[in-house]
């Protein structure tokens, strides 16, 4: 059998990292990335890229923890290397504060991030409206740098990347042996998944270089995430909204909420407003499927539905998807052998 031709649909953090994992687990594969958008125009580019996991209600906790751990370990190593600045990966410390007691005292990821502990009384005094808090150190993947760095690594492996809107996975049959669906929100139309719902997020990216610590309200709605050059202020979680246009009332509201957590943000400059649709699902779909049409088969690996937690688990799900691609290849080679007999 000729080297398997794998098409990865989607060039956000999931598509690019999955493509990279496939080149690593299957060096003989020919991998091509197809997407209607590339950085800086993907959903991933809007996100802050903070490694603070989102909890998926229907994915077993141990699996989410494994994904997060693999992602954290992988990024941790890069953050301390000479490539860190190009990749946009850096450590950041800060606080998660709660007005009412958090559901769990110790989230499942507390032993994976660094130095996790409850906030002291003195630290909580900075937040008069909040009564509980957690302090820890985690990682941040700045975009576009991180996506551009993934693209650069892919190019080094000979992976081709094309701007192309895939309307139907079947259009890839014949050109490619295996299709990997990392289309994020696009999967709703591409594979007709009605469980996939957009959760609209609006953020502000501002110039406030004196902000060195992150602050997040435990309700997940208000957050301040300092990146390499900009600070991301958020946000919103509007379930079912497809609007990609910034809303000025929302901008004002986000700014006010963030200033109440960090008053010095009043002096922030160069406010840029961005909107993204989190591709949300009760569980992340990392799954093999063999599509069948008129006696013809198309092996597909799905890797989408990461919602608010894409960056936090991307490398773990990419590795799992690459493993599933490996299984598809074995299956193809098996049936190819049988065909010869």
């Amino acid at each position, binding site marked *: 059998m000729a080297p398997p031709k794998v098409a990865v649909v989607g060039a956000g953090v999931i598509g690019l990292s999955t493509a990279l994992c496939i080149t690593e687990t299957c060096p003989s594969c020919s991998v091509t990335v197809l997407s209607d958008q590339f950085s800086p125009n993907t959903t991933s580019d809007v996100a802050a890229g903070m490694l603070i996991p989102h909890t998926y209600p229907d994915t077993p906790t141990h699996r989410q923890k494994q994904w997060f751990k693999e992602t954290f370990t992988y990024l941790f190593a890069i953050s301390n290397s000479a490539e860190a600045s190009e990749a946009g990966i850096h450590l950041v410390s800060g606080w998660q504060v709660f007005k009412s007691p958090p559901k769990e005292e110790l989230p499942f990821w507390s032993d994976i991030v660094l130095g996790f502990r409850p906030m002291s009384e003195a630290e909580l005094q900075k937040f008069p409206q909040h009564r509980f808090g957690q302090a820890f150190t985690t990682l941040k993947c700045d975009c576009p740098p991180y996506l551009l760095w993934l693209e650069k690594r892919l190019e080094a492996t000979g992976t081709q990347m094309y701007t192309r809107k895939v309307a139907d996975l079947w259009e890839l049959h014949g050109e490619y042996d295996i299709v990997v669906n990392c289309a994020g929100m696009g999967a709703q139309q591409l594979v007709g998944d009605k469980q996939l719902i957009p959760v609209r997020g609006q953020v502000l990216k501002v110039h406030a270089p004196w902000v060195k*610590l992150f602050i997040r309200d435990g309700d997940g709605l208000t957050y301040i995430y300092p990146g390499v050059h900009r600070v991301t202020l958020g946000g919103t979680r509007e379930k079912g909204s497809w609007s990609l246009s910034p809303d000025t009332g929302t901008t004002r509201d986000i700014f006010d909420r963030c200033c109440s957590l960090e008053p010095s943000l009043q002096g922030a400059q160069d406010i840029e407003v961005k909107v993204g649709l989190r591709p949300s699902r009760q569980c992340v779909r990392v799954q093999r499927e063999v599509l069948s049409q008129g006696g013809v088969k198309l092996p597909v690996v799905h890797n989408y539905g990461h919602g608010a937690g894409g960056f936090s688990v991307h490398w773990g799900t990419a590795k799992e998807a690459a493993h599933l691609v490996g299984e598809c290849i074995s299956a193809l080679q098996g049936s190819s052998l049988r065909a010869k007999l």
Partner: protein
Amino acid sequence: MRVAIIGAGVIGLSSALCIHQQFHGLLPSLELEVYADHFTPHTTSDGAAGLWQPYLSDHGNLQETLWNKETFDYLLGQLHSPAAKEMGLFLISGYNLFTEPVPDPSWKNIVLGFRNLTPKELELFPGYSYGWFNTALMLEGRSYLPWLTNRLTEKGVKFFHKKVESFQEVSGDGVDVVLNCSGIRAGHLQPDPELQPGRGQIIKVLAPWVKHFIITHNLKSGIYNSPYIIPGSEFTVLGGVYQHGNWSEENSAKDHKSIWDSCCQLLPPLQKAKIVGEWSGLRPARPSVRLERERIGLGNLQGEVIHNYGHGGFGITIHWGCAMAAARLLGSILQEKKQLATPPGPRL
């Protein structure tokens, strides 16, 4: 009543502001004058990174520990004020690293969230087996000194650009009290063999992905003779030189190489950082801060000098506590001269 302040670094300017705040209401005739040969951005304070952190050990000097605490608490209180950004004041977290376990510092309960480093955190710093994590404050001289200058100017404080050669030069003619905040050059005004330069050199780089301070310690070579990395609001400061007795303010190529190599080894991502400047300065080092009154003969008259110098590498860290102590000393002087009808309130 005129008070002359010699020195316009962080000590001189903050002492002036503190005195104005404490006494202006009680003594409307109070006039303050600042004399200095160097103003921001050419003072020692302007070169410092601006991190609030005392030395590892206070050598039993509890007074200095209290002044450090007063400064931290004062700055923490200013953090949410609209002035914070203009002052160059912000929170920062980071690491202190050691090659062996050390006792907790005197300031562990002053800073926020002080704790030991976990094994996983220590993996970031090969060669170091022990350390602390805490959240402290940055007060950047390049912003703080102009802010102090603006506040003082608003309040009618006068500034004179001159090199003062003696206390007598600025005293007399209604100036009864001189505040000596002359830092490293206090010896020109009055010999003090205990005051010695602790020469430092720093490299300024652009490394905006660095969000933590990292300070290493080599117990054998002494404080600040080991690499440190301190991210500011515009650039990151790389350092790690403390040369006792060296008066040179020229940048040394040898020190540059040592700082660059050791900081890149400590934090490999720095290899890609762009160098944007270099600076050397003389920490006004002394076994303890000289903060006391002295009666000086000024021709026919007796004047008073309040000394406030010798803050070594912790001037920003201790400045406000010392400014308040200097203000208290002025209060005693004013009371003795019966300038104050009632004694100042308990805060003094």
